[in-house]
């Protein structure tokens, strides 16, 4: 940011709001009580800038101050504080080039060179009055870096070539639609979606629902092609064949969870007759109870577990290898032999 001063010469002597701006001014003034109307200073300065070809002249600022019955110096403070108020004339298309870190890393410096070549120095206006540019801080579109704002719109994912193209079209008086300049939608991945592409993710079938209500009408067919790349497929919405999954089916689904390995054999002895499994380090009252439910009651049983058994119990208890880490089997073998002796 450099020193900002009014261009008093270009500003002329007078300024008046356009007639069509008056309702907007009334709207903003209406938001604040009469004695607090100076709160509307920023919106009014902004409107004055719009009505003055994109920059705020000194008479325009005074007009705002008079409207709001503010001392000139107070409005001057606001106008110089916010860099969005431009105190010098700008071109019909004013390019604000983001030079903050993400954009800079993605090549904003190259874009600057394009601006310098096509337009000239910062804040200089081309002879035909069509273009001017300045460097600004982050415009909040880092995900589409590097980018510029031209007048009110964002032009994103630029390369020196695409910016050059944009500028030459604007210089020729041709409008350029804003948005991204690479193959992507908004800030979605380039070249289309890379994840969450399965239609099943979105039609409810995963939850045993055969159809969700109020989904937008699918284009055609049972399994339609995605409309645009990267857009998740949507199944045909129906309201009629909707089914609530019953509790039984949910539980049944749980039962069906398959565990790897082999379930260890249950013993005949009941829990009271068995050993105190808590003696094994790593087994507390809760795990003991779960093991008892499986029919595991004695040290000998655990000592006799095969590798497959260990795998299964590990999965059942969601242990992720704790049995081996805590060497339950060795502990059980020792305890079983001690019991015998």
């Amino acid at each position, binding site marked *: *940011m*450099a*020193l*900002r001063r*009014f261009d*008093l010469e270009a500003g002329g002597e007078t300024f008046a709001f356009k007639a069509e701006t008056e309702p907007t001014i009334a709207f903003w003034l209406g938001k604040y009580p009469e004695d607090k109307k100076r709160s509307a200073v920023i919106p009014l300065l902004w409107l004055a800038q719009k009505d003055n070809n994109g920059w705020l002249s*000194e008479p325009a600022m005074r007009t705002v101050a008079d409207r709001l019955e503010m*001392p*000139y*110096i*107070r409005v*001057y*403070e606001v106008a*110089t*504080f916010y860099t969005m108020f431009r105190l010098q004339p700008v071109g019909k298309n004013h390019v604000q080039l983001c030079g903050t870190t993400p954009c800079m890393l993605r090549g904003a410096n190259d874009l600057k060179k394009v601006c310098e070549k096509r337009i000239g120095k910062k804040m200089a206006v081309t002879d035909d009055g069509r273009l001017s540019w300045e460097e600004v801080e982050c415009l909040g579109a880092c995900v589409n870096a590097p980018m510029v704002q031209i007048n009110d719109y964002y032009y994103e994912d630029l390369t020196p070539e695409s910016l050059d193209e944009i500028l030459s079209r604007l210089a020729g008086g041709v409008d350029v639609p804003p948005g991204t300049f690479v193959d992507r939608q908004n800030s979605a991945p380039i070249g289309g979606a890379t994840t969450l592409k399965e239609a099943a993710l979105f039609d409810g079938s995963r939850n045993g629902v055969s159809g969700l209500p109020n989904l937008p009408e699918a284009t055609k067919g049972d399994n339609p092609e995605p409309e645009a790349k990267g857009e998740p497929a949507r199944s045909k919405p129906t309201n009629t064949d909707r089914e609530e999954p019953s509790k039984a089916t949910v539980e049944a689904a749980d039962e069906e969870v398959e565990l790897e390995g082999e379930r260890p054999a249950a013993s005949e002895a009941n829990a009271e007759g068995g050993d105190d499994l808590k003696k094994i380090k790593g087994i507390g009252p809760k795990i003991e109870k779960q093991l008892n439910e499986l029919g595991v009651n004695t040290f000998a049983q655990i000592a006799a577990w095969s590798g497959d058994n260990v795998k299964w119990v590990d999965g059942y208890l969601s242990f992720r290898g704790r049995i081996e880490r805590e060497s339950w089997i060795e502990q059980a073998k020792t305890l079983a032999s001690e019991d015998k002796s």
Partner: protein
Amino acid sequence: MADDLFKLNIDGKDIEVPKHYTLMQACEEAGAEIPRFCYHERLSVAGNCRMCLVQWKGAPKPIASCAQTVGDMRLNPDGTPPNILTSGDYVEKARNGVMEFLLINHPLDCPICDQGGECDLQDQAMAYGRSGSRYALNKRAVENKNMGPLVKTIMTRCIQCTRCVRFAAEVAGVEELGMISRGEDAEITTYLEKSLSSELSGNVIDLCPVGALTSKPYAYNARPWELRKTESIDIMDAMGAGIRVDAKGAGVMRIMPVINEEVNEEWLSDKSRFVWDGLARQRLDKPYVRENGKLRPASWSEALQKTAEALKASKEKTGFIAGDLVEVEQARAALDLARSLDIASTDCRPAGATYGADGVREKYILNPTLMGVEEADALLLIGTNPRVEASVWNARIRKAWLWNDLQVGLVGEGVDLTYDYDHLGTGPADLDGLLKGDSAFVKAFKNAKRPMVVVGEHALVGENGLDVLNAAHQIALDAGAITEEWSGFGVLHNAAGRVGALDTGFVPGEGGLDTKAMLEGGVDTLVLLGADELDLSKLGDTTVIYVGSHGDRGASRADIILPSAAYTEMEATYVNTEGRVQMTGKAVQPKGEAREAWAIFRALSELTGKPLSYDSADQLREQIREHNPVFAGLGFAPGKSGHEALSKAPEKAKTLAGARPFEAPFEDFYLTNPIARASKTMAECSLMKRGLETPVAAE
């Protein structure tokens, strides 16, 4: 009671302070010294310099003590009062860091800076700063701004404390200073570098903690440690603001305000502050005698001899007029001399004024006192413009309007007083039935507990003068402004010498002429005691003897000039508009052969054959005190004790319908007396005020 107090532990010392105190005030109460730049007790809190950081045990960061209200602080978890440390490694490191940032962009030009030697930044950098800079990059430079003929700017030195911005907006009431841009580019400026239009703009020089805003007329004149400092009283208006006259050798180098809470707080008007260059110009440094139409230097003995002859010629056809700046000693001595010669034509009032002849002091002083406006809830100004007649008091009215919701009504010229007022009329005619009006102000005024009516002295001049005074007095009585607790009626003078001269009794004696009659050719010999604000054109061939310090209107018409000392050159008594008796100090010697005026009259009395009975100023003052006991109470304003005299209903005022509207008290605030008219600075200010370019190009 205990609810309003809050306990704190500051530097291990338990202390109890009112809840509305800031932590800084509490720390000072506990005896700790807190450095600061942006904080000023008479301005709003900004909290942007961060120099006043202290440690609050348990808080995650150092606390800016100026912006922390004590009542908002939390107790320690165990319920004990918060512990504050104002020194120690933590605090010192924090302040050291702040100081380093402040100095990053501050130039190291103390040797050529006018603030050097009395600079807050310099002092505090010595106390809290580091010995060297770690900053290797370029310092920023800021363009200097034009702020008019009084304030010189070297903006690179600015540390953005915004004291000047807050002063202009809050105290002076002119929103003309501001901080533009932001961050590193932040700059203090007036709007597009226009001059400050306030009569109090010089105060930003005192407020500026660094050398960014300094005095333009004083630039590079002296160093503070070279100056002899003499406390004195200002006589540019009738407030009698406390000043300090800084002199070097024979010259007054500058005038600074001295804190006097009851009069000027710590402000000073531009005229009082910058008039000092007028003390060195246009001075009468030797006696002059007119010969063949031209003034020629003369010896004291010749001039005195001629004067004595003229005085003795005729007692009926001789008169004395005291001017605006006359000190009590001079008035007394001149009056004694006149009375010793049976001269009754003596007057100290402007031409056409008739008030004060009855000797009731309460009817010509400002009984509610200057400070009283802060207690008042409604103020009615009649025929006065306090902004130019008593600029510093105007700031106090604004303060009361801003913070105490003081309602102000004005009958007189509608001018910008820096606060809102109800404009109730423009002339004496509007005083008739004023209280019958139904405006918001009149309602507030009638319901006020402490209404205050202030009449400008200028409104009492002219044929309706006494009626205006009586009508205003009656309004005050009707509104209940005179009670045992409150004397809400007074006169605002703008001439420093007037009240003192009236207290001396410097009014026409039995059969004597008043100012108007004397000026219209009623006398053949006229002695002017520094009287320059008069229309001398109708005097005809009257012999005029001018006793005064400056060659101005009076001296140019004079036949004999007797040079006297100016207010910085003698100890002299003045009575301000409140009736407060104060003394000036002698900062420098009188110019050339000039003498203190009372001594001139004492010498004349020898030549007229009736020597006055005092040989020294002390003896004279003793007589002054004997003559009128009010002079015994130095620095004291009678205030509400005047209610007894005021509670008596005044004579019924004749109808004022058809009277001419009140006029502005003077044409130009900056040029109201001979000293100001001799000042180049005041001339520049006057030109600026009238929208003309200053003759001296801005630096």
